[in-house]
């Protein structure tokens, strides 16, 4: 237990290092700030829909894009600069490094997620339970951060732009199948089935519950699904990175 706590502390050190180095990298700014901003504007402007109806999709999309913007680039960058080898020479378990990468991605997502929350408070938009929304936001950010680190596991490249491009290929379709633009309850049965494999679906459904008092799945299912995806992505990210590590070091 003691060594677990010690390793967790070292994850925080890895995350602190990532924040200093990677938050200001071009691809992170583009994919984590510029891109979601313009996508959000395109989503909001010109739609004759009440803000409350728009907010679940908007929050979901912002959280998803920002929390997944840092994770895919870290491991390829560190592979290229050989700093991954440096980290692995230190007394840290492999999961400590992956967890640190997840944490930095999570913190980036969380910081940007504050913007819609401030907007909600400023505009005085009513919702079912603000605390529950914050909990959902935290779990969803961890889930998406783990997903982003998982996306950098394969192929074990040392070119960050390759991973960013491949992760975009996965992220965009997910946004389209997750009820951002069309709520899940309005999708045909095959659409609903596809939507159920996306973690974003459950998060947006959860936010819809909290804002509109209605959703496709029960609120508990939404929470449990986000947590289940979070654990699965974390486990898969550690295992898959472990499997590809030898290639990265060669």
């Amino acid at each position, binding site marked *: 237990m003691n*060594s677990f706590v*010690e*390793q967790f*502390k*070292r994850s925080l*050190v*890895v995350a602190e*290092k990532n924040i*200093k*180095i990677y938050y200001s990298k071009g691809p992170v700014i583009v994919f984590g700030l510029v891109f979601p901003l313009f996508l959000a504007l395109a989503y909001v402007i010109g739609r004759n829909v009440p803000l409350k109806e728009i907010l679940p999709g908007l929050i979901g999309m912002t959280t998803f894009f920002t929390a997944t913007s840092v994770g895919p680039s870290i491991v390829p960058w560190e592979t290229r*600069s*050989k*700093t991954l*080898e*440096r*980290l*692995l*020479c*230190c*007394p*840290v*378990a492999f999961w400590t490094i992956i967890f640190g990468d997840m944490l930095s991605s999570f913190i980036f997502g969380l910081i940007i997620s504050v913007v819609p929350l401030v907007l909600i408070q400023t505009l005085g938009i009513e919702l079912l339970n603000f605390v529950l929304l914050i909990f959902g936001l935290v779990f969803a950010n961890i889930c998406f951060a783990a997903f982003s680190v998982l996306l950098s596991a394969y192929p074990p490249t040392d070119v960050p732009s390759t991973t960013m491009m491949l992760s975009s290929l996965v992220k965009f379709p997910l946004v389209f199948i997750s009820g951002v633009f069309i709520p899940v309850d309005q999708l045909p049965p095959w659409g609903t089935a596809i939507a159920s494999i996306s973690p974003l679906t459950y998060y947006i459904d959860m936010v819809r519950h909290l804002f509109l008092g209605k959703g496709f799945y029960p609120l508990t299912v939404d929470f449990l699904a986000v947590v289940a995806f979070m654990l699965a992505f974390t486990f898969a990210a550690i295992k898959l990175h472990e499997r590809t590590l*030898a290639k990265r*070091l*060669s």
Partner: protein
Amino acid sequence: MENAVKVQDLTKRYGDVTAVDHISFDVGKGEVFGFLGPNGAGKTTTIRVLTCLVKPDEGHAFVAGFDVLKSPVKVKQHIGVVPEVANAYIDLSAWENLILMGKLYGVRMSKLRENVTFLLKEFGLYEVKDKLVRAFSKGMKQRLLLCMALVNDPEVLFLDEPTSGLDVESARILREKITQYNSNGKTVFLSTHNMEEANQLCHRIAIINHGRIAAIDAPESLRAQSMELQCIDVAFNKPVDPQEFSSIPAITEAVPAGNKVRIYTADPSAVIEILAEFAKKENLRIIGLNTMMPSLEDVFLKLVKSKDAVIE
């Protein structure tokens, strides 16, 4: 002597290629142990196994008393590593790099600041401590890497070709620091291509070739094992074809060396007599004659050229 490193039957394969093939050796506490070998001989793979970067396929390795397979984190807690390729974070300053390393080793912050300040001053980097590493020269980066490896005051220091590509002065500073570190009773495991460096720094040397240990001994003993590599450089007042000496039984080999003839022999005194007689007979004058013990480089080349020269 207690062992800082113990390697037993260690084997590492990459697909069909056996990078390290059942090697065994010990490194005593407080020893500077040199690891020599040509490119692709298995030096870096061995260091990577000992620093827990890769897992061996067979055999055992213990560093600072801990098993590299069973307790990798404990092993890493007691070692410092300077890898072959410079890999400090170039987007961080020297100070930030060292603080990062210290935190990853769990060094308390007050002690860490003290250590970092001491190391930066000791290695002449204190004045540039706040500069980003991307602005550093290769020599400065290499000094910083050594600082990073020493930040936790490790028991065993692994150095993978630390002076490779450095200018003479930076290499000399680094060698001085390694000697200084070792004089405090710490163990150094040094992989190098530089024979003179190995000769100067190491108490013992292992020569690895094709993944197998070809020899382990003190530099002087390794040279003594290869007495047939003693040589005589002889210069006559007129050019002489080295082939003239090739049929003499006491001579192993005779080769041209500038205006001289280099003669390899296990019996220099007999050969000197033969040369004097030869000069008299051919009406030549010996204008220069030097006898030389085999250099470490000679021993190294002899061992790596012979694929089957493997002792366990």
